[in-house]
């Protein structure tokens, strides 16, 4: 009897362990000068962010397709991993990409807290990272390349613009109560107050608020409303704002975060004229962007947003970097090359200042109707801004 029980337990445990091992039969040692180049992409493929993940991945694939999935004679493979919007899972995904798939470079997550966790782990492996969107201030410098800088950079230009061009001397602020939104708002607030503007009120509804009525009812008199909400919450805010008869113009400090559907909804809800900053809009009128928009519309059925753009640019940066190293993807070599890249993106040149923070064009964008649809219309261009 005892022997039998042992056998059962042993066989069950052994089976499980064997399956565990068998399951992970991937990525045996790869060289850094031959064999496929592996780009790891960590995104929230499950959970609330999945809508954006697909868009970012499309942007990456669009660029890779342009170069026929080959750089310097080596094939390029995209390895995706799900973070489920959870920092721990994101870090685990990074671990898998590095240890099992042996990727050469990683594109970290969309969500700032997950991205931070990923950067934290990758700092221990020396793997370079190219961000597809903004970052929270870096934890460990050297390895991460953020073309659009930190969250604050996406709204700093709005401050002076509001004072000088729009003449709004006072604003009431409302934004989600978490670090990402705070970062976006701080960029605006710092430059706005430096230029003489005055913030009369700050309200911070928790993330996931479904009814903004209590906050909207408390809005104090000011020239304008400065807001930042995660895109899924923006339409609710606008609807309730209008429902309660509020008329002060709205500044969505980093407006580039919105996708077409959000912009259309906001336009329909009476949000035309809402203005803010962004580093991309499909309505930017340059030949290279027009070509990009046409290509993406043909490929994916709709105009690109800052998410596809982010993926596309990140992939372009990697292509340039690996081209410069003549196909050598050894970490330190690649990082040195990435520091010197200069990419001709759809919106102009993108390169990096010494600390991994990018230099790119930034725009003031306004929700306006163009040919019957609401888009983010650029009303001012800032060339080659050094993002912080």
């Amino acid at each position: 009897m005892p022997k039998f029980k042992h056998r059962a337990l042993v066989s069950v445990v052994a089976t499980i362990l064997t399956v565990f091992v068998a399951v992970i039969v991937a990525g045996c040692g790869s060289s850094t000068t031959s064999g496929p180049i592996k780009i790891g992409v960590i995104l929230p493929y499950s959970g609330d962010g999945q809508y954006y993940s697909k868009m970012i991945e499309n942007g990456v694939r669009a660029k890779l397709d342009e170069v026929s999935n080959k750089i310097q004679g080596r094939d390029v493979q995209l390895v995706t991993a799900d973070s489920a919007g959870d920092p721990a899972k994101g870090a685990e995904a990074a671990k898998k990409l590095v240890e099992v798939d042996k990727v050469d470079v990683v594109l970290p997550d969309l969500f700032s807290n997950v991205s931070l966790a990923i950067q934290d782990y990758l700092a221990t492996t020396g793997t370079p990272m190219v961000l597809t969107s903004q970052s929270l201030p870096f934890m460990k410098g050297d390895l991460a390349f953020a073309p659009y800088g930190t969250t604050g950079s996406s709204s700093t230009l709005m401050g002076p613009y509001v004072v000088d061009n729009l003449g709004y001397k006072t604003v009431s602020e409302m934004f989600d109560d978490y670090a990402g939104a705070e970062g976006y708002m701080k960029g605006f607030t710092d430059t706005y107050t430096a230029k003489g503007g005055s913030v009369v009120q700050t309200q911070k509804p928790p993330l996931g608020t479904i009814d903004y009525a209590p906050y909207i009812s408390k809005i104090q008199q000011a020239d304008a409303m400065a807001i930042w909400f995660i895109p899924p919450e923006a339409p609710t805010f606008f609807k309730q704002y209008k429902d309660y008869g509020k008329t002060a113009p709205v500044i969505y400090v980093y407006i580039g975060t919105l996708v077409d559907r959000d912009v259309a909804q906001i336009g329909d809800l009476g949000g035309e004229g809402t203005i803010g900053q962004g580093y991309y809009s499909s309505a930017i009128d340059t030949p290279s962007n027009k070509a990009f928009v046409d290509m993406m519309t043909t490929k994916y059925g709709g105009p690109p947003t800052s998410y596809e753009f982010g993926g596309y640019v990140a992939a372009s940066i990697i292509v340039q970097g690996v081209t410069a190293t003549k196909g050598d993807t050894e970490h330190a070599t690649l990082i040195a090359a990435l520091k010197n890249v200069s990419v001709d993106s759809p919106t102009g040149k993108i390169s990096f200042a010494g600390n991994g923070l990018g230099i790119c064009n930034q725009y003031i964008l306004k929700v306006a109707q163009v040919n019957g649809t609401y888009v983010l219309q650029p009303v001012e261009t800032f060339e080659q801004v050094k993002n912080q």
Partner: protein
Amino acid sequence: MKPRLGQTYSRWAVGMVLFAAVPPFLPSYLQGLLTKTIIFALFATSLNMLMGNTGLFSLGHAAYFGVAGYTASILIEVAGVHSAWVVGPASILAAGLVAAIFGVVALRVSGIYFLAITLALGQLLYSIGVRWRSVTGGTDGIFAGRYPDLGFGAMNPVRFYYFTLFVSTLCLLLIYIILRSPFGLSVRGIRDNEERMRSLGYNVWNHKYLIFVLAGVFAGVAGWLSRDYTGIMVPGYLGVMTSTTAMLMVIIGGENVFWGPILGAFLITLVEYYASIYTPARWPLILGAIFVISVLYLRDGVAGGAQSLAQRWRGSRASASD
């Protein structure tokens, strides 16, 4: 009693040997997964102290898991206390304390009501975790660095695996002893028929309360280990999703067998690994489907099903040799 115990402990020994000998030969990523699975096996087993053994279905068990994790994170990151000899016990104590407080509130009611209350209490802590940003870092959480500082030698993934294995096995053994003791027998009596136990003179509330707190303490150990493993603490670890994950492990693994939740932890981690590669967006759907099937058709879980299969086989072998 003696032969049975000897038998049981030799099974434990065999299991330990396997878990101790194999891992160094595994790739590092797999070691990490195994470490995580063992931690969750402990967490799920602590929940089963309440579910399978006392009939208390708690949907807020992650509260204690998360409290321990946050206590550890805050001690390390904010108070600068690094020694695991202080951080560990403090976190576990904190978890026990919260369980002691919540137990008073939750045990005012029973049955499904109890489930609802524990859910709400867990979410209360979650909302505190999200809102009290100055202390908990809000949704961004706290990064306090991986691995405990034991004061001798550097930690690395392999050493941490053994540390986790050691601590978890110790706890599982303690839980096993508790559940096999007269106290364990009485809580199972309460599960089966509360009224009768009361009429027999047992202080039902005291029993429930004690096991509730003990379960919270062991969940705290798991929470502390989990934080050491990931280095990150976010409010999600306090909330309903983590609690239901543990519940799923218990049910799918089997709540009527001691090692059921352990098996459940392994099964779910395995399926999750596969799903996240091939269909990350559909993972919750798959998990839900497995769960529903399990509740409808395999109520005793995989462990229970395996045991009854084994019984039947032994039974037929016995009759064949007649």
